[in-house]
């Protein structure tokens, strides 16, 4: 049984990373958006693997559902632009590609150096109850503030896209 969990992990991790790479690398924007949804779905699997079923559920609901659709709407409204000539200044692209693997290696090295190698423990009984207790009891006030933030974002979004006279 011991090899099943790592196997699932490897498959899910591959989906997540491949989806992420596809977002960045695919030239067509609709392709990027769909790969992003795929990556999110893989991430939900990883959450479930970690035993955070509630988070996984929300991940599907919010990211895979809402945000991906919202982004697709954004793509629709702004039109699918053709890939243009690369006119970045200051070697932006080269610098970007050069920096990222460097950093990635650095972080992974740090992580393993700090010995995060102990196994993740899965608790029985799921995480809905402790999470609900935490959010609605200990973090009730931040939760309410978050709702205000959402309201502000909603009003802000409407105000930004509202045309002058309608």
């Amino acid at each position: 049984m011991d090899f099943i969990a790592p196997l699932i992990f490897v498959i899910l991790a591959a989906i997540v990373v491949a989806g992420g790479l596809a977002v960045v690398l695919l030239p067509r924007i609709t392709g990027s958006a769909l790969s992003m949804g795929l990556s999110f779905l893989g991430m939900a699997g990883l959450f479930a693997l970690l035993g955070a079923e509630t988070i996984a559920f929300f991940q599907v609901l919010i990211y895979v559902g809402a945000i991906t659709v919202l982004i697709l709407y954004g793509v629709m409204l702004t039109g699918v632009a053709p890939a243009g000539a690369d006119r970045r200044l200051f070697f932006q692209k080269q610098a970007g590609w050069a920096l990222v693997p460097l950093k990635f290696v650095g972080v992974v090295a740090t992580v393993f150096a700090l010995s995060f190698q102990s196994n993740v423990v899965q608790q029985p009984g799921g995480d809905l109850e402790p999470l609900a207790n935490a959010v609605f009891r200990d973090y009730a006030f931040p939760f309410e503030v978050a709702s205000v933030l959402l309201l502000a974002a909603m009003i802000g979004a409407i105000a930004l896209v509202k045309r002058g006279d309608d």
Partner: protein
Amino acid sequence: MDDTTLRVLATIVPLAPLAAFAINVFFGRWRLQHLTGLIASAALAISALAATGILLGTLGRHDAAIVMLYRWIGVGTFQIDVSFQIDQLSTLMMLVVTWISFLIHVYSMGYMHDDHGYWRFFSWLPLFVFFMLVLVMADNYLLMFVGWEGVGLCSYLLIGFWFEKPAPQAAANKAFWMNRIGDWGFMVGVILIFLTFGSLAFRDVFAKVGIAQSELLTAICLFLFLGATGKSAQIPLYTWLPDAMEGPTPVSALIHAATMVTAGVYMTARSTPLFAEAGPALLVVAVIGTATAVLAATIALVQTDIKRVMAYSTVSQLGYMFLGVGVGAPIAAMFHLATHAFFKALLFLGSGSVIHALGGQQDMRHMGGLKPKLPITYWTMLIGGLALAAIPPLAGFWSKDEIVNSAFFRGQGYEWFWAIGVTTGALTAFYTMRMLWLTFHGAPRDRHLYEHAHESPRVMTTPLIALAVGAALAGLVLGWPPDAGWVHQYLGPLFERAEAIDYSRIAVLATISAVAGVLGLGLAWLTYARRRPDPERVARTFAPLYTLLVNKWYLDAFYDHNVAGAFRWLFGASWAFDLAFIDGFVNKLAAGFQIGGRNLRRLQTGIVGNYALTIVLGLLFVGAAYAYLRLRQ
């Protein structure tokens, strides 16, 4: 009285006027209009009744009750509470303030009836009463200072009540500036008190009075007294009070005669434990008080504006009160404060009634012969005038006499204060008689005004009568027998005083001062009624002296030309300094930023990607630094 009742009453006393202010200032203009007068008067009645309740409830009590409302400032050891000290001194002041204010509010309902600023008047006036009550009830110097500044503000607002006219504006500004000088002194005194004693509460400070060095204590007291000279119009800061008569007459009566100007006397009396230990400070108080009493009385002799006579008379009487504090008789000073509140408020309200009857005319040269036209005003003002002139058995006699007698009994050269005090008493009688005669007797000098004169309405005459009763009886009720009357026994526990009372000597001294008063009255009667000597001829004969007095000893002119001039030069110089150095420096700095900005703006490429790259570079740097630090351990 149990503590809860006392607490409730002590809260009602200041809060009732504050509530009236809040209601009137927010709803007065559009909704309440003439109801504001009723609201304010009712609030004052409640306040006065509550104050009376406190008096009755604490009669047998000898220690001060502290009513703490809440902690205002608490920073380490610096703790200031909003709390009231209910003892004999503050209760007496509360009574005087609330009852006189109540009567004056009632009177003002008639006096201000046709003024378009009616609601404004009845907003500021209760606000003033609130601050005055905070001042007298405070149990620490800082809260007292709050009241002190508050009454100054209300005084400013009410002197400049008719702000459309230039003279009230100027007078209000003058009062404010003069008071600023005094307030500065008071503030320095309070700060010194805190630095010395580590507390501002009266009971703490007075308990620790021994730990201060004598010189420091003297400095504290002199600074406090500077504050008192500003608020109570003493030399050298008295010149604002006569100008303050530009305000409505009830304001002059309440603020600039009966209550606010006595704040300095109250504060000095309250601080007696400090002053008593402060070496020459009390002598300074006595000298300034006496000098002010004489100076103001001489100026009052030649004034022609009925309210200005009263104003200089107030300055002079306040001088008496300071003399009382200065010679170590704070009880006598407080006694005089109370009686003076009655008869001076009465005289101001009476002159207000005259001015009202003559349609705003304040110049006594246009009056005369008004007695049959204004009978109630005349008789009440006569009582007030005789009380001011210290004719027995009216109120002023007992209190003023006690002050000058205290000076005499002090001995050691203090007899001079007595002599000057009695002489000033004769001057007081003279100018009082002169004022009464010029206003009410003789032939009318202005036919037109005379024909149209009419007695004031009931709402104005009733307070006059009430105050006249007070002016007539307050001295006897409160102060008989001399030095052992009710007020002495009531205030007795607070102040040290001589044990033995020598009635035979008091009788002699009282007779002398009564004779001086009658002499002054008689001389004035001869001069103005019989014209022997003729006043114009006297003025011509002593022309230099007369000019000196008419020009108020040239003190106002001196302030205008020399002091104000010096400040104007100073202001000009600082303006030039400001332009050349401070502005110059700022301009150079701004130019530097301009050049820097012009060059640095090239960094702003406007391309989002560049900015994101910068962020990632920063992240990289922080991560690298963290990894380096962790690995080095």
